[in-house]
């Protein structure tokens, strides 16, 4: 079981309190009703699913209830960092590489 740092509660809590919520930094298009099929496909269906660093959303559903973002290495399962929803995607530099 992972320990996850909730950036709102500002503490590490066990994974049981959280729920995964898919890839992060996929903004719903403002003019969604007008976008092309291709744009909708990119927005709704296509996901990166990388080996290595992934940016994903989590919700502290059995805690404060907030959605937040995390950078996690899918190889080591390590959380590199968590940050509040709406904050820009962090530049992880070297740490962003495959570990």
């Amino acid at each position: 079981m992972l320990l996850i740092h909730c950036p709102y509660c500002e503490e590490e809590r066990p994974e049981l309190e959280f729920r995964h919520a898919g890839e992060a930094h996929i903004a719903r298009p403002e003019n969604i009703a007008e976008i092309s099929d291709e744009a909708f496909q990119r927005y709704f269906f296509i996901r990166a699913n990388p080996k290595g660093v992934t940016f994903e959303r989590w919700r502290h559903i059995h805690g404060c209830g907030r959605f937040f973002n995390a950078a996690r290495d899918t190889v080591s399962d390590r959380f590199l960092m968590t940050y509040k929803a709406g904050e820009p995607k962090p530049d992880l530099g070297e740490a962003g590489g495959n570990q």
Partner: protein
Amino acid sequence: MTQPFRLPTAGRLDAAGTVSFIFDGKPHTGLAGDTLASALLANGVHLVGRSFKYHRPRGILSAGAEEPNALVGIHRDPARKTPNVRATVQELYDGLAAVSQNRWPSLAFDVGALNDLGAPFFSAGFYYKTFMWPRAAWERLYEPVIRRAAGLGTAPDQPDPDRYSNRFAHCDVLVVGGGAAGLAAALAASEAGARVILADEQAEPGGSLRFEAGAVIDGMPGWEWAQRTAAQLAARDNVRLLTRTTGFGYYAQNMLGLVERLTDHLAAPHPEAPRERLWQVRAKRVVLATGAIERHMVFPDNDRPGIMLASAARTYLNHFGVAVGRRVAVYTADDSAYAAAIDLKKKGVEIAALVDLRPAPQGAHVEEARGLGIEVLAGHAVTGTEGRLRVRRIDVAPVNGGAPRQIEVDALVTSSGWTPAVHLFSQSRGKLAFNEATQRFLPGQYVQDAVSVGAGNGTTGLGEAVAEALQAGEKAAKEAGVSKARAKVPNLEAGSTERWSSGMAGAAPGAEAGKKAMAFVDFQNDVTAKDIRQAVQEGMRSIEHVKRFTTTGMATDQGKTSNLHALTIASEMLGKPIPEVGLTTFRPPYTPVTFGALVGHGRGALFEPTRRTPIHTWAEAHGAVFEDVGQWKRAWYFPSGGEDMHAAVARECRTVRQSAGIFDASTLGKIEVVGPDAARFMELMYTNPWQKLAVGRCRYGIMLREDGFIYDDGVVGRLAEDRFHVTTTTGGAPRVLHHMEDYLQTEFPDLKVWLTSTSEQWATIAVQGPKSRDIVAPLVEDIDLSDEAMPHMSVREGRVCGVPARLFRISFTGERGFEINVPADYGLSVWEAVWAEGGKHGACAYGTETMHVLRAEKGFIIVGQDTDGTVTPDDAGLGWAIGRKKKDFVGIRGLKRPDLTAPGRRQLVGLKTSDPKTVLEEGAQIVADPNQPVPMKMIGFVTSSYWSENCGRSIALALVENGSHRMGERLHVPMPDGAVEVEVVPTVFFDEKGERTNG
């Protein structure tokens, strides 16, 4: 004489503590403190089982958790029959009853041993090759036969009556393994002030000090030091000492799974006491002191009962006071086995020969052995053994050729060296490094906050191991952030006369390539050296493939004694160095863990929460039959006067439409949507328009996912400009709230809206039927119930039975109807008041089945029953609920996808069977032509189907391709006893004009 192999002058058990036990029906005695294995050996019993594939007689190989052979069933009572228990770890208790496994009709005479004669047929990969074809034979013939013939113990046939508990724990330093190194590490870490958990799998810590006769620590014999230290640690407030506790899994972020065995060693455990306890420990630092496991020698017929590991023979002698034989030979390629010969000899056991594969072994141990009069045959090999149910003779020959010699023995102890137990390190995803000098894998690069010490780290000298562990313990405490002034870490003097060397791995002489010998590598899965070579010959290159082809290392012992042998033989065959062939992955659990321990309390009634409404007790008292809806217990129907379900539901359905019915709708999900932007938010979350919905009015809302498919539905009442009472499907509230929160927090964070789950705050009582207003009216204090003041689809706040209430005028039956929401604590008393009023009008209580029938008569859908995640509002005939002028809502773009707008999609229709008495099966497939060849083209399926008492016939809803254009068409529902003809009709079966809501 009982226990003829128990030596009065050896061991640590109290001769007075006699214990009785039964093995395969025969009574024996042992001593308190024995394991089943030591007690059997004390009685001269070596034959304890038959092997997995060839049914060869097998004995006891080891004295610990690595045991591959001595698996038995422990039968406590009819419900407590535990199969595949290692006799070497099962502690003896008075009255213990054990049975051997995998033999028929008896252990000494076993029909399955014929497999042994057919051994060439059962060689590596035989499953894959022999039983490939024909496919049908697998299910009917091969698998059942194989499963019966080849197998371990029999699973119990009754539910497990035992309790299992579960604990989470946090500590600064977790030490796994309570041998000399583990104890020293725990001592140092706890001295430094760290909160320490020390787990050891045995009843008493001490590890290899159990058999190392020459060990001295802190001026006292090693075993005595271990017991004193354990007592000292247990007395410390900052130490938790867990014995009989195995660290079986090393997971992410330093979380380890430990299983503590609490009652398996007791003759009469307290019936309420948990049998095992699962510990999930989160440690800041982990010290792995897991020791090393001795390997056997791989030579022809090395599996006869009486052939065992040298360290096991020493354990039985030095700890249990049991001689493994009267005339014992030793076969080794390693220094440590000399101590076995010396210890046995000193206790009066005859050593027939000490066979050492190495040409010129040297050192004090060799001198000591010779000095004791032991014949040391250097440069010799054991090339064969004899003895049907126990080894009786060994063949010994010089390695360089020369005349073989036959030596009579009753036991043979072997050692080819020690394999560090790196299982947990490897599970932690640490990288193992192959040490060329000692030819073994050792912990290399760590990826978690852990450190290995002692034999598990390749540190084999006792003095070095203790020193290393003391340092590691202190350092771990420091790294865990513990800083205690003047911590005094002990400086222990430790030493031993023991000599450990790296030994050898792989096949010994007589089992080389080309020899037909049955030289076992993996005893539990019956894999020989020849099988490994054959796998390579047949093209397996990776050790992972060799493993799967031969099944080596895949038994419940996970190859603890065999993996390095298999790897070495494969690498020789491949002509590649060992590290290039690679090591198979270590996976949890280290030793088998019961499902009970993993499941803990979470079974039966505690498997998941049971949710009951405030009205549940009333329903129970009135004879309701309940059904499970998600976690809810819902009243299904209320049989009276001996009615069956059909009769009860028919009566309830009739009564609701004739007078009225009362229904507990409390399970409906409810979410309060509040805030200045509440209407804007509702516009985004639901397809419907909300801005213009007047306060006091209700609307049926449809929620989509972004892909355009129906996600949920429910009636929403507007209580104020900034306040909506949203209902969801039963059980749907959590995911709907999650969905709403997701959009509110991450896509529309600027909206001023607050969401609150109110599902359990409100009890909801539906009163439906022509008399519903008459029933409700006397209970309502301050709400005008006239059609003019409170039309269908409206909501009012007021008082019902004096209790603050939200009263909805809505209908899920098509009748005039009300839903009374009162605070849950008042639910039962208000229900009783409604029930009393209802009685005056002939109303009934009805359950979910009647609710389903009545709504189906009206063509009202149930999301999740009439939709399946691929249904759009248009498909469901609900296109009217989409706000066509809206610029945005979740799903607006998904609905425009070409496939969702294409003609011919599956659409919801009604079905009437040509024979009105036939009720279709829900889920049944629909075809256009019942006479087409199989497989038929399926054009849809039945989603809801009932007997409708009010229509006097069966009714059904279905999703059918292009269904809305098939009205009047005849379709067919193929069933096992013939196709059922149906007619496609509109979804509304009753009161098509919808006049009764105001009736």
